[in-house]
């Protein structure tokens, strides 16, 4: 069962200036982090349930909290995955989606099944001497709605991946 109340409560506690400006003692900061993490977990279930109901498809949704530092186990380890982009604004937006991936060639299809231009960008890592690969594509998302994009990695075995198995679904 999903629940947004624990996150609301954690956010209410974190309105205090100690949480915003860093004027809290270390043990209090640790507790703020604990409350946020505990609040987010049932909220993820709530979002998953909402997406399942709106898209009519039940999925094991993954939330990548470390996308800003190019860590996302699903996109890095999967040959095929779906990207749901939700737009909370009351107008249509175009958003550049960046996902860390393993080295390779990828095909991205929009909700109407059309292939969208994508690039795999090879970047120097800030943390190690290794290079990172990031898949970049532009997503178009309707006002207060979501779009589901399908991504397939092309390997020797599925070089005919042009006919993507993942069935795209229209934006809602």
């Amino acid at each position, binding site marked *: 069962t999903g629940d947004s109340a624990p996150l609301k409560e954690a956010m209410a506690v974190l309105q205090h200036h100690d949480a915003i400006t860093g*004027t809290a003692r270390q043990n209090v900061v640790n507790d703020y982090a604990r409350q946020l993490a505990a609040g987010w977990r049932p909220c993820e279930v709530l979002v998953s349930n909402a997406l399942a109901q709106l898209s009519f*498809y039940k*999925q094991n949704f993954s939330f990548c909290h470390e996308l800003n530092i190019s860590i996302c186990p699903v996109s890095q380890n999967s040959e095929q995955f779906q*990207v749901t982009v939700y737009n909370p604004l009351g107008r249509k937006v175009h958003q550049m989606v960046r*996902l860390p991936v393993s080295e390779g060639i990828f095909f991205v299809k929009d909700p109407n099944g059309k292939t969208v231009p994508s*690039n795999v*960008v090879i970047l120097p890592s800030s943390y190690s001497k290794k290079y990172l690969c990031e898949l970049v594509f532009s997503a178009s998302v309707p006002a207060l709605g979501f779009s589901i994009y399908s991504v397939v990695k092309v390997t020797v075995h599925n070089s005919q991946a042009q006919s993507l198995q993942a069935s795209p679904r229209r934006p809602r």
Partner: protein
Amino acid sequence: SYVLAIENEYIRATFDSETGLLMKIENMEQNLSLPVSQGFFWYKASTGDEESTQASGAYIFRPSHPKPLPVSRWARIHQVKTALVQEVHQNFSAWCSQVVRLYPGQRHLELEWTVGPIPVRDNLGKEVISRFNTPMKTNGQFYTDSNGREILKRRRDHRPTWRLNQTEPVAGNYYPVNTRIYISDGHMQLTVVTDRSQGGSSLKDGSLELMVHRRLLVDDERGLAEPLMDSGTGKIVRGRHLVLLSSVSDAAQRHRLLVEKEVLAPQVVLAQGDGSPYSSR
């Protein structure tokens, strides 16, 4: 020596190939060009002086000198250019780097900075800023927002309702920035949109700065009883500054839409495989 630039149909950002620093921003749509030098600096935190025993701490920002020191005078750079993104990676030091990024169709320049862990082995507390220097004549004025709503005019060393005796030339001119800060010369406007609340100021005409990270060794004795010191090796912070250069008449529309998109950003959720049909019944 050659000129390094990234550009799309609206913006061109030029870098000095000798120093690796941002040198110029051009709005090609409105035919505007502004020399902009951007880099990272740090203020040495005060631990108290002859005038006051007040130290810089969690509650108090009090640098010991008004002039900050550069993290580095040059950056090692790496350029990435594809059809969908152009980036210049700037490495200032082992603890400070930045990616300057431009996507097609984008009317702003994206600066993604990574700062930390701030070294304190030299026993100096540090307050790190990103500073933009331009030749704009701003007449001591700059603008910051109030909770993303009303934009307030700020005047250096001045308060609108009383005669100010400025005793802190840096901190006394710092203001909260919730979503944006800008400077203008009446003709063009340089706006920086933040992804989080920060402190910001314009300490010289044409200059604009935002504090991005701090690490201090002394408690400011305001009740916390702990210095603003991360346990362990220290925190690494990553954030973004979105830079808009436009005519004054056009600026408000642009930064309002951009801030909306930044604050209510699209959310990405991933799923493996195809899933199974679902009905709420």
